């Protein structure tokens, strides 16, 4: 049994199991990845439309509050009272003029400044806060915020490059394809735990090869087949990528090596009734390092936020959206197609299950390696029989983690 965690000599063509299970690695990830020079997705401006609106979410494991302040700026604070550390914001969303910690009534304004401390001047001439205490030094811990086309990102680092450089022009163009500046509207959320390491979840959306082999539903209805036009694009740091594909929607017999297409046809085609909305593909799945999957598949649009929950699980929050004032028929199609996604999703269930099975394998054999030898290198590809985006993810990971 090895006791030091050394990466295999094959570099990103191998991924050791302990990467998914080791508590020390997990702790280092919280510090270096989520707490480092990265843009973490935290929400949509459509979720906090008015001054004083707030939502709760997580950067890595850290609970944060996203709020629109009185000057309409978006702020992201750590959800921790600077007095005794209580997680003062208890509602998942709401509206407030200020944030008051219930323990000692320390009151913070919408900009995170500490505005009042009860009895700070003492009671009947006795006690009170010491002269060493300056409220200006005890505001809520704030993250850097970047908003692009209605999407909010936050970073613990003050020196992370702007999102445009972070993603590079190609990945940015796919981001802007869906988040193009039109006001977004949230249609609802699905939230579920996946019993797998957060990286396995993110990698799943960089793995082009599985969709036409695991997702029999997609193959059967021609939504994702191995012979359709597919491209892989990798961003400048390797951590972000996009998989773009153009569906034929032909329910034809399986090609050799593809998932066996089951013998059934949909009685009600409304489940997958689709109108073409975007240029460049019918489905483009974008992963933004470290915690976001931007899903566009047929008329499904969702931000998928990944929150690590220890090495062996993560919580996925899917925020489904459309565009304000879109046609009712299109809105209805999005709601119908949502049957494929989330915890009860006819496609997502496949992924939830296989990821848990992969995690079980890693837990049992932490010193065995995953093998990533499909295709070569860590760059773009114009076909789907490659693991280049997964290798690129681990190039980025090993660099940030010093592994």
């Amino acid at each position, binding site marked *: 049994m090895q006791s030091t965690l050394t990466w295999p000599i094959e570099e990103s063509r191998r991924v050791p199991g302990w990467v998914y299970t080791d508590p020390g690695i997990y702790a280092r990830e919280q510090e270096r990845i989520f707490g480092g020079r990265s843009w973490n997705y935290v929400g949509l401006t459509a979720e906090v439309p008015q001054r004083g609106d707030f939502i709760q979410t997580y950067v890595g494991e850290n609970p944060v509050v996203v709020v629109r302040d009185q000057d309409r700026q978006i702020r992201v604070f750590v959800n921790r009272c600077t007095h005794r550390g209580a997680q003062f914001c208890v509602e*998942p969303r709401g509206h407030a003029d200020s944030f008051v910690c219930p323990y000692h009534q320390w009151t913070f304004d919408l900009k995170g400044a500490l505005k009042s401390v009860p009895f700070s001047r003492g009671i009947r001439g006795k006690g009170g806060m010491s002269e060493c205490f300056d409220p200006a030094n005890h505001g809520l811990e704030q993250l850097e915020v970047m908003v692009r086309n209605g999407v909010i990102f936050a970073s613990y680092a003050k020196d992370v490059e702007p999102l445009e450089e972070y993603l590079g022009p190609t990945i940015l163009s796919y981001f802007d394809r869906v988040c193009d500046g039109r006001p977004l509207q*949230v*249609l*609802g*959320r*699905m*939230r*579920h*735990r996946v*019993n797998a390491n957060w990286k396995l979840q993110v990698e799943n959306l960089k793995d082009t090869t599985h969709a036409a082999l*695991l*997702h*029999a*539903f997609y193959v*059967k209805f021609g939504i994702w087949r191995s012979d359709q036009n597919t491209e892989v694009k990798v961003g400048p740091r390797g951590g972000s990528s996009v998989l773009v594909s153009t569906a034929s929607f032909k329910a034809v017999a399986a090609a050799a090596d593809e998932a066996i297409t*089951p*013998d*059934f046809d*949909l*009685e*009600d085609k*409304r*489940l997958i009734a689709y109108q073409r909305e975007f240029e460049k593909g019918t489905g483009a799945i974008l992963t933004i390092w470290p915690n976001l999957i931007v899903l566009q598949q047929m008329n499904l649009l969702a931000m998928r936020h990944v929150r690590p929950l220890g090495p062996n699980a993560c*919580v996925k929050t899917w925020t*489904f959206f459309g565009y304000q004032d879109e046609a009712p028929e299109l809105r209805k199609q999005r*709601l*119908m197609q*949502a*049957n494929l996604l*989330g*915890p*009860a999703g*006819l496609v*997502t*269930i*496949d992924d*939830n*299950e*296989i990821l*848990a*099975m992969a995690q079980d394998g890693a837990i049992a054999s932490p010193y065995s390696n995953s093998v990533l030898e499909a295709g070569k290198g860590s760059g773009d590809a114009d076909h789907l029989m490659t693991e280049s985006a997964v290798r690129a993810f681990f190039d980025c990971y090993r660099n940030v983690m010093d592994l």
Partner: protein
Amino acid sequence: MDRKTEQRELLADVELLYTMYAEALDDGDLARWPSFFAEDDPLYRITTRDNLEQGMELCLALCEGQSMLRDRSTALQKTVMYRRRFQRRMMSGIRLLPMDGLDRGSIKVRATFALFEAMGDEPSKLLACGRSTDVIVRQGDALKFKDRLCVVDSRVMPDSLVFPI
């Protein structure tokens, strides 16, 4: 028959519908699941308390009409990959609600559900707990769901929801 007895008999019939429904799904009999719903435009939805409270239309599962019920049932049987599991549905707190605004012959019911699931070597765990607000109609001698809305309490599902509630 006086009204009180009539209501008690109706409640007994409604409770039997829930029992038979739960039994079929606990037995994994997906093929029979649509038969518990009315022939004519049934509606089946699973959503979360969170979405409902915010007036959000998104559902975890949405079936409009018998065909969509059958499609979900068949897709689960033929296309979805999932590990074997054993489920147990507890339906209780079944109560007839006032029928204001509904067609004569429709029955509005509120019930609570708890769905447990055992997988692999693990003991049964709670997968989902919540309430349903349902409209039931008579179809011949039988009672059928016309509109079943299952609302899951928790904000985060602990795992996949493979089989319907």
